[in-house]
């Protein structure tokens, strides 16, 4: 029988803020030692009250806008109660009843083209700390407690692991581009809800949830394993499926049922009386919208309209650092298509020779812009530009002074070009005679001699014109 896979995703993303969600500790939650990014508030001491970090709201709204969500103008926080040593207050502040964003839409690539995945909601919450086990004891590290997170919950709209990975890649590049999250290792964590049903069947099958995975590769493998487990159960009766929470073991590539206790808790949610409802008025929303970076889909369109090749667009979209570099260079007055070619073709080529990937490109945008501009203005030719670029990438030189020092910039040394031509003419009297007798090819030889001496600098058209002018005198 043919089976259809039904998958829904809950993705936790750590936000890039300067401070934690309810206190002024560093937002990244990293310390050089355990518990050195901690204050009385995020360690749950009595007397401290949570004070909302406005930036968290702005980033959550930005994420919602990028995922085509409706923004709830009235949003509130709830307390979720459970005991665990890494949770200092024994409750987590999260959003249950009035999440900040709802009803979004994200298009993903599938085998049959592009499909829309519905986003149920995005809510804000605080992270928990972590436990470190050693010897006979366990230790708590609260550095991570109250680090701001958003959780993006989809409808059960995915039908294959490829769609899930495509979605996650899109979230990642959107969020990095939007300054919402750096999406570093561990900063994106997924819970996957999965069920299987006979193709054509409307009713959902028994659902299991695989908790807390943070690599896309593991998510892909876990879905494939779990889907097969469900299909085997349905097709061959290998086991009885029950609704439960499971974890994925990276080493064996299998999923295992977690203790029931962890799934049956009554979290006794209730509205947090210490945090007033947040009202997002028109003015604030407009401010956030104005600061919002362009979404991935719009960005693709923009590149396409500029005439950038599809392959190049994919490379740029997939690599936010490169997209940012191009943005920066364009903002300095360079042409978008030119810049894209310089980066994706020339820089990538230079790095490839050194055995490096484009993602390893480390170049100051001002320097790249200077090179591109010198070429665009006709100060140096493209070949010379590339030479400068190599020197910039390899040795970090200043492009303008490098041109001067190496005689690549004819504009700064026009008389030098003329001298070279004069010398070539003087050194080749026969060529001059041949040219005057009508042999056009003779000029070509002289031109070659000039170019050789100029080591590729100078605009060939200008040199040719100057040479012909001198020969005709």
């Amino acid at each position, binding site marked *: 029988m043919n089976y259809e896979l039904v998958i829904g995703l809950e993705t936790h993303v750590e936000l890039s803020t300067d401070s934690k969600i309810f206190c002024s500790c560093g937002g990244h939650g990293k310390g050089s030692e355990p518990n050195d990014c901690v204050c009385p508030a995020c360690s*749950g*001491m009595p007397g401290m009250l949570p*004070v909302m970090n406005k930036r968290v709201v702005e980033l959550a709204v930005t994420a919602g806008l990028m995922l085509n969500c409706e923004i709830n103008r009235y949003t509130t926080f709830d307390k979720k109660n459970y*005991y665990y*040593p890494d949770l200092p207050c024994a409750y987590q502040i999260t959003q249950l009843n009035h999440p900040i964003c709802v009803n979004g839409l994200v298009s993903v690539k599938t085998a049959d083209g592009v499909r829309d995945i519905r986003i149920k909601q995005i809510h804000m919450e605080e992270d928990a700390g972590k436990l470190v086990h050693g010897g006979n004891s366990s230790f708590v590290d609260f550095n991570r407690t109250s680090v701001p997170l958003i959780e993006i919950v989809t409808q059960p709209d995915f039908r294959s692991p490829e769609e899930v990975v495509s979605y996650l890649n899109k979230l990642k590049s959107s969020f990095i581009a939007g300054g919402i999250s750096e999406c570093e290792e561990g900063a994106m964590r997924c819970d996957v809800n999965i069920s299987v049903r006979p193709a054509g069947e409307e009713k959902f099958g028994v659902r299991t949830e695989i908790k807390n995975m943070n690599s896309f590769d593991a998510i892909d493998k876990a879905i494939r394993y779990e889907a097969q487990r469900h299909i085997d159960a349905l097709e061959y009766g290998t086991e009885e499926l029950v609704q439960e929470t499971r974890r994925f073991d990276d080493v064996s590539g299998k999923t295992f049922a977690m203790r029931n206790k962890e799934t049956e808790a009554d979290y006794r949610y209730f509205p947090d009386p210490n945090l*007033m409802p947040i009202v997002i008025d028109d003015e604030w929303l407009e401010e956030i919208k104005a600061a919002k970076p362009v979404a991935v889909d719009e960005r693709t369109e923009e590149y396409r309209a500029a005439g950038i090749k599809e392959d190049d667009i994919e490379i740029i979209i997939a690599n936010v650092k490169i997209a940012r570099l191009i943005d920066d260079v364009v903002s300095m007055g360079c042409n978008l298509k030119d810049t894209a070619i310089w980066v994706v073709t020339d820089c990538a080529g230079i790095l490839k020779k050194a055995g490096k990937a484009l993602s390893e490109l480390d170049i100051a945008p001002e320097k790249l812009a200077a090179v591109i501009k010198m070429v665009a203005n006709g100060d140096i030719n493209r070949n010379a530009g590339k030479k400068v670029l190599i020197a910039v990438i390899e040795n970090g030189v200043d492009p303008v002074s490098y041109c001067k020092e190496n005689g690549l910039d004819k504009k700064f040394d026009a008389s030098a070009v003329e001298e070279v031509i004069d010398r070539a003419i003087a050194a080749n009297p026969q060529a001059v005679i041949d040219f005057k007798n009508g042999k056009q090819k003779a000029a070509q030889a002289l031109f070659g001699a000039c170019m050789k001496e100029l080591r590729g600098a100078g605009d060939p058209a200008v040199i040719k014109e100057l040479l012909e002018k001198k020969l005709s005198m």
Partner: protein
Amino acid sequence: MNFYYKKIADGSIAVDDTVLVKGVPAAAGSHILEGFTPLFSAEAVTRLENKGYVISGKTNVGEFGLDLAGEFSYYAPAESEIKGAAAEAVKSGEVNAALAVDVNGAARRAAALSDVCFLKPTYGTVSRYGIISTAASGEQLGVYASCPEGISEIMSVISGHDEKDGTSLKNESYDYGCDKELSGKRICIVKELYQKADASVKAEIDAFAASAKKKGVSVSEISTDIFETANVAYQILMCAESCNNLSRYDGVKFGYRAESYKNIDELYVNSRTEGFNFLTKAVILYGSDVLSKNRYKDCYDKSLRVRRVVMNEMKKLFESFDAVIAPVCSLSAYGAYDIKDAFKKVFDESEFTALANLIGLPALACGKVQIIGDHFSESTLLSLAKEDK
């Protein structure tokens, strides 16, 4: 009577042990916080110190302020007649004023029993930063003094916006003047509550009414069940929030940890079983129940809706009256009793006090007379109480 949990200096202001003073052990009257020393002071304490006031020390308080008037502190022996330590410290002249948190009326009742004044101000006018929180939506830091002028002086220092408290209102200052013109003011006495009080409490109310009339205040009587309704709703919210706020005392991070445990669950259970008194446990269990999935809608959520109804009713009442008068408590003195009866006793007595906690109204206990006003009407309440003390 030993007023203090920790005496720190010869100062003019005492703070009850739910209010933090940097470096001074704080336990909120509970075994569970034994050994806890705060790293910072309450905002109100800092503001007083900045104005040159010296804090004399921490007065004993009933565990998390949940009892009648301070009778169930882990650190103070039971006495035959119940009195609040902070109220007594003011009464005796040991200090001029004291700060205390009114979670469920205990501070007002203590003022009544010691015949001093206590103001529970409008919610959000005094920062709750640095008080050991129990029921966040109803508790409020207030002031004991022997007279309205003493309260007025301290309130002017400690009130006003504090960015460290998300529920703090934006205003920088409020009016605490005690000299409002009273002629033409209208007050009403709540019949149902008056009838529940003993003869001596009734006599105080009568005397207050007679004196008010002499000053040109019109005094009438109203009949309403709103205080009873408000009490039920507030006890549900207060227990739920207490259950949540007290869950951080788990023996893991600070305070008391049980000596004997085999795993993390036993560490939690034993520490909390040994660390909380019977009343606190009852509050936690009741609060946990009203928040549970099966009960949430009919208990907690309904109480939130009742809160709105009570708010609307009271706003309507304040269109006709400048203040509502009620006893602070039913009896002029409480004798010692078994802690197993405490939950019910506190519930019954809170009918007089809970409405002000539920909707954040200012309530002034002046002896056994309670003057409740609309939000921000503290000046009217203090003026009404003046000279009658």
